[in-house]
């Protein structure tokens, strides 16, 4: 595999792809001191190890990468060589620009990506949560990177679309692999508690079943079935349960307004909140609040 190095703004192959900051294969045959000191990434960096052994520290976690392994460094994460230098070996990498990062690792990717907003949100969250900067044995990443390389150098009909599609595919594959790796898909109760904690952390968000399923690494059908048999509820009804339990806590604090409670716990409106609350508890939020503050 020949070495090459494309980068903005100099490489003409990257004209029309301002979101690809760097794209390269590098064969490193000598060690240079301080060649890989600590940096904080401002883009998504994906490294694929083709040859050699690399010892890196990503977000303060020590990792050793072997051929076939992939390192993913997200915006804001720190990255350095274990000994501040780049080890001997061959790397294939791509740096992808993100327009900005909103709260909860919501990666705003720019118009090139065909991923829907909710898919991007899920991918960002999954990568962020998995705490797994290194994905082992992912030969498929090399295949995609090679296809991107071919498209960029040959520039046949439709290559611009193709390159962007391949980049989306890259992100999807990485997100899937990282959920698979972060929970072994054995202990459902454990995976489900992890999910529940995420839901509670951000109850105001309009969670979709797709997003929830992605967090435990299942498709929506399998996820729904599993949640139903484990909890007794469909995923969305389970979510309503959590929303109402949180709402009850807030209702008992006299200083929080019902509308604020509704929105904080993820209901569209205070009307939607009241109807659901009444249906479940037999009280309207107002009646419930009155009931528990009247005593004593």
């Amino acid at each position, binding site marked *: 595999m020949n070495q090459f190095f494309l980068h903005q703004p100099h490489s003409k192959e990257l004209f029309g792809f301002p979101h690809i900051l760097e794209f390269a294969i590098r064969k490193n045959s000598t060690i240079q001191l301080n060649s890989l000191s600590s940096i904080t990434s401002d883009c998504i960096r994906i490294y694929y190890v083709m040859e050699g052994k690399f010892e890196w520290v990503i977000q303060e976690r020590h990792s050793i990468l072997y051929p076939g392994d992939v390192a993913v460094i997200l915006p804001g994460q720190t990255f350095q060589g274990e000994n501040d230098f780049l080890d001997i070996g061959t790397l294939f990498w791509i740096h992808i620009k993100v327009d900005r990062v909103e709260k909860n690792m919501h990666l705003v990717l720019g118009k090139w990506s065909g991923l829907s907003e909710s898919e991007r949100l899920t991918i960002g969250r999954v990568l962020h949560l998995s705490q797994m900067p290194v994905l082992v044995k992912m030969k498929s990443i090399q295949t995609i990177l090679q296809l991107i390389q071919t498209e960029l150098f040959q520039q046949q009909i439709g290559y611009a679309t193709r390159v962007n599609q391949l980049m989306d595919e890259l992100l999807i594959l990485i997100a899937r692999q990282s959920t698979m790796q972060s929970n*072994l*898909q*054995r*202990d*459902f*109760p454990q*995976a*489900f*508690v992890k999910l*529940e*904690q995420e839901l509670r952390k951000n109850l105001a968000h309009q969670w979709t079943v797709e997003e929830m399923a992605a967090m435990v*690494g*299942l498709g929506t059908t*399998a996820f729904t079935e*599993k949640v139903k048999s*484990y*909890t*007794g*509820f469909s995923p969305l*009804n389970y979510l309503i*349960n*959590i929303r*109402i*339990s*949180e709402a*009850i*806590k807030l209702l*008992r604090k006299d200083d929080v307004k019902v509308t604020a409670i509704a929105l904080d716990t993820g209901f569209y409106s205070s009307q939607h909140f009241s109807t659901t609350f*009444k*249906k*479940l*508890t*037999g*009280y309207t939020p107002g*009646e419930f609040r009155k009931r*528990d*503050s009247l*005593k*004593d």
Partner: protein
Amino acid sequence: MECIITIELGTNGVRLFAFDLNGNVINSTKASYPTFHSEPDYSEQDPEQIFITMLYVLKNFLIESIHPQRYKVQSICFIASMHSLLAVDAHGAPLGNVITWADNRGKKEALDLKNSQLGTKLYEATGTPIHPMSPLLKILWLKKNDSHRFEQAYKFLTLKSYILHQLTGDYVIDYSLASATGLLNIHTLKWETQALDYAGITVDRLPELCSVFTTPGKLRKEYQTSLGLSANTRIIIGSSDGCMATLGAGVWGDDKATITIEDSGAVRVVGKQILRDDQKRFFNYLLTENYYISGGPTNSGGVIFDWFANQFGEFKGPFDLEYTIETLIHEASNVVAGSEGLLFLPYLLGERAPLWNPNARGSYFGINIKHERKHFIRATIEGILYEIYSIGKMVEEHRSINSLSVNGSFAAIPFCSQLIADIFNKPVSTINKANSAGLGAFLLTATDMGIYRSLDEAAKSVVFHETFRPRHHDHKIYAQYYQLFERLSLKLEAEFEMIAKLQQIQ
């Protein structure tokens, strides 16, 4: 037609059964709620989530399975797991989460009390082993480590008291559940002053004591409307899961014991006398004012085998634990009794009875070059059941037991039921209904309604489903290995201490 609904607020979720007045199950349903471990020793649940889950399931259950069949709900009887603690303010609003039986934050408090003279006195008076599970020690922990919550607390409740307060507006606790708090004198049926003093509280901060047959108050109007229940539907306070499972297992009489193994496990006997023990190894809880349920609990139940399956089982699809366990059991059945000399100590979660040592740890012993994966599977199951046997043996120092009744998801696996029969060398029966706690609550309610003249008569009505006879050849093998198992579990005490300390540093 009338029916009785039982609601079990268990460790992992809520289970509902509807019985007709002959004791036939009309329908059942369940739903789960999570346990949170925000610190290694903590084990908490969200009281609102449990309440909402229960209400939601109950409502759906009534609308889908009970009202369309024109059943009239005569009574609703409650069952809950033991040892939970929830502090509430003057408005009844929870101060923090429910602390469950599995919470170990009061380790130090337990050790201090256990080694004191007062500890012995309180154990004898309250029947509750001195262990962090005991609400007495949880309250003490709050007083020392979370004084704000302790001061703010208008009442200290169990989860069931909280749920009943939500439904009816009354603060109540039955003698049965109260006898597992470490605060009730099981001989006088009054709150034990010495225990209350030690915890630093007064009687008015506890719910009102009442019999398991009590109807606390009426369902609040709003719930009557929303659930479609009449104002005459009786709410029966009921008892604890352990006591109800014993009643529902039909074990009544001096020569019988019941073995329950779900995630955790227990061996229990019923009697009019408590089991006295100088080493404070037993619990003695009240079922009614006249009957005690005595025995010993273990942490090392089905949860240990689930751990094994999750780590070493082969998974067909993602999260398909049931299939994995079935396969493992099948593999285990292809190994001879005794696992060809491989022994397992199941103390992955520390242990309660009979060791009462939170620092106990698990171990495989006797591994040789011929042992295969399948031996480990069988040894794991045998280890869990030897541990149950060790509690049984302890009980047999006080009562002679001639037969056993088993229940709970792990013990009811036929392979396990047979092993229990073999290890104990006693016949083992299983009951016809899936859930003995629910059945126990039905029997309690039916007795209250006069369908049975007494709990004795009610217990005798339980129909046994299948009996496993002990196989003497296997028993002889188990008896030999059990000796070694017991020696190891006692011999390793110092090493348990050392490894637990090292693990804590990591």
